[in-house]
């Protein structure tokens, strides 16, 4: 199957700082492709290269089998994107914004069509209002309508849930699923919010410092049933001795997260059983912290608490 997006050996530096370092991945038709990394990992730079906003220092970008630099117009004709913020012309109405961007894509939809598209994002009743009067959520929805106005085959969303309330985040999640499942579009969505990606992505890549850490099908990369369990105990030496003779040893990780802490990767339903057995063995359990699925997976392939904190908060 020909990939919709294909990146190979991408490199980009800004004043000596390497923002993207040899990155490469493929996005296939029908994928909801999660693009993960902490702030500053190189996600936005990569997406901007993908949309021809930034010229790479090295590497190749193909969209729909065409070289982006040589066939920029043909490639972008099939792409709709919201990059970072859904910026539109605030001094124009929602309708005018939609009409302008439709025409820039070479189409002249009828008023009825544009109104239907505004209706899809819940803005039909505000079609004539100036965008400067809109809330952040409304701007986000208009930005998505603008990105979809020409019915693109590939939708690129860069941090689409930034600044949204929980309802707005849920709306975006449902929209992404709708675009993929109902309309057959390919969606490339970047985020630093792991939980959001986890709920929608079929494939994903995690990058750090411009480099790929892992890439592949979400189901192949981690087991959603596994949790990362951090247990704080009164006597870690005794606790380790106890565990070394128990089946729990298989779940114990070799990392030493803290002086009195033990790190496990295990099914979450086993946590109360482990807790009970530790207590029965005379080991006081002071705290149990759990992180689940994708977040746990991310933590398992990266190190450093600051790294984790940046990523998960």
């Amino acid at each position, binding site marked *: 199957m020909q990939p919709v997006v294909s990146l190979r050996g991408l490199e980009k530096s800004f004043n000596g700082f390497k923002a993207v370092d040899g990155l490469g991945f493929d996005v296939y038709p029908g994928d909801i492709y999660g693009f993960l990394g902490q702030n500053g990992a190189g996600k936005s730079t990569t997406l*901007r290269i993908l949309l021809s906003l930034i010229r790479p220092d090295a590497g190749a970008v193909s969209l729909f089998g065409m070289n982006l630099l040589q066939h920029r117009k043909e490639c*972008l004709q099939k792409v709709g994107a919201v990059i970072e913020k859904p*910026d539109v*012309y*605030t001094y*124009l109405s929602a309708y005018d914004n939609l009409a302008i*961007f439709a025409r820039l894509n070479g189409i002249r939809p009828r008023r009825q069509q544009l109104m239907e598209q505004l209706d899809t994002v819940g803005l039909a009743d505000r079609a004539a209002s100036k965008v400067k009067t809109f809330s952040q959520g409304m701007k986000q929805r208009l930005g998505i309508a603008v990105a979809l106005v020409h019915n693109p085959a590939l939708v690129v969303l860069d941090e689409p849930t930034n600044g949204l309330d929980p309802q707005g985040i849920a709306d975006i999640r449902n929209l992404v699923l709708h675009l993929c499942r109902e309309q057959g579009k390919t969606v490339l969505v970047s985020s630093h919010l792991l939980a959001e990606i986890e709920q929608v992505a079929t494939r994903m890549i995690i990058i750090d410092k411009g480099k790929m850490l892992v890439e592949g099908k979400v189901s192949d990369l981690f087991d959603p049933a596994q949790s990362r369990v951090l247990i704080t105990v009164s006597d870690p030496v005794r606790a380790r001795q106890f565990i070394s003779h128990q089946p729990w040893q298989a779940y114990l990780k070799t990392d030493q997260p803290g002086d009195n802490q033990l790190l496990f990767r295990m099914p979450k339903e086993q946590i109360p059983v482990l807790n009970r057995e530790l207590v029965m063995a005379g080991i006081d359990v002071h705290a149990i912290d759990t992180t689940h699925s994708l977040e746990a997976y991310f933590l398992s392939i990266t190190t450093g608490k600051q790294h984790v904190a940046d990523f998960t908060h």
Partner: protein
Amino acid sequence: MWPILRIELFKIFSRPRTYISFVAITVIVALIQLALYVDGKNYIQFGMQSLTQGFDIEGNVLNGYLVCFIILQTLLIHVPLLIALVAGDAIAGEANMGTLRILLTRPVGRVELLLAKFAASLVYTLLLLVWMALLALFLSLFIFGKGDLMILKSEEVVVLAQNDVFWRYGWAFLFASLSMVMVAALAFLLSIFADNSIGPIITTMSIVILFTILTTLDIPFFQLLRPWLFTTHMLGWKAFFDDPIPWQAVSQSAAILLLHILFFAILGAWVFKRKDILS
């Protein structure tokens, strides 16, 4: 490019700030006309004090043609600011709003977009000058009537018969348009380098003011610089009120302004085509 140009014009004329320039010109022209209407005779008498001692001057000296000339001399030096307001905002304003990156993710060529934006800035510039011509020339003729145009220069007095003036204004406005287009091209070029429009607007005005000072200062060293400053050539519109018109000098100035426009436009396109959009 036509659909993009239409979109750009729609955007320019949908912004209230676009009309500030038209209002400003209307107010300034109206104020000058009102002042000359109320107290113009004294102003003319004062200006011609040295002449009236040796000559008898008859007829309608304070006519529409003279009023237009006074307005142009007062106003043309300030119009670049009004033009920079829009041309300096063309790219930098979009970068500041974040819409530049949205625009450039569309299947539109960068040079094509740049040319459309430049053309839209030129349309705005030309409309501003047409508006100025309507107010300064036609309204002045309506209020003050026709007459011979008498212009006091530093070393001579030029008197042009009234039937020999109108076509000169046509050329003068055409030349002034070229000058203003050059200012627009400069502001537009600077706009490409910036991510907010204040920088290009202020820089354009600073360059124009600095060059104008160098052009007008009567110091030998600066006189050497004069032929190289575009502001020297921007004043070429005045030559259409010489008798005879120094066509060679005017053509040379026009060619220099055209070369500036071409240089700014080509450099702008070259830079914009390679620019990383980080806004």
